């Protein structure tokens, strides 16, 4: 499972970084920098919570590597 951000929908709420600091931090302008690669199993529930909690549904948890490149 990988985290992917829809950069156009994302408007810098920052809740995903609050919920999942292990994998997401915010840049200087409040937008998420998502660690690339597979989400460790023990963090999948939290990642799912961050996905459901995103106020604009910009975060997704995808099974296969479908985004163009691992967004850093």
């Amino acid at each position, binding site marked *: 499972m990988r985290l992917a951000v829809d950069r156009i929908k994302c408007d810098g709420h920052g809740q995903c970084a609050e919920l999942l*600091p*292990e994998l997401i931090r915010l840049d200087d302008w409040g937008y998420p920098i998502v660690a690339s690669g597979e989400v460790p199993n023990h963090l999948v529930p939290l990642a799912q919570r961050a996905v459901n909690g995103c106020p604009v549904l910009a975060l997704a948890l995808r099974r296969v590597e479908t985004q163009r490149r691992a967004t850093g």
Partner: protein
Amino acid sequence: MDRNTQDRVRAREAALRLLNRLTTGVGVGALAGVGVLGAVSAYTIPGAATSSQTASTATSSSASSTSSTSGLGSSSTPINSSSSGSGVVVSGGT
């Protein structure tokens, strides 16, 4: 995991606990509220001579949380934009 991330993980865990405590607290308060307000309205049946001033607004903790709208607007400081449109491009005698 660096210290900063550890701090943020601890903050998350604390906030999740707080969320659960607040939710259960409000739930219990609400249940109590049904009882209290039910009883209060029993004493203030119309026709009962005394319209006893038993107004109590502190029915449940949630009521108090609603009025504490602390003005903590997140400060998105405006970036001083110096973007002056098309810049000098690879110049030369065109």
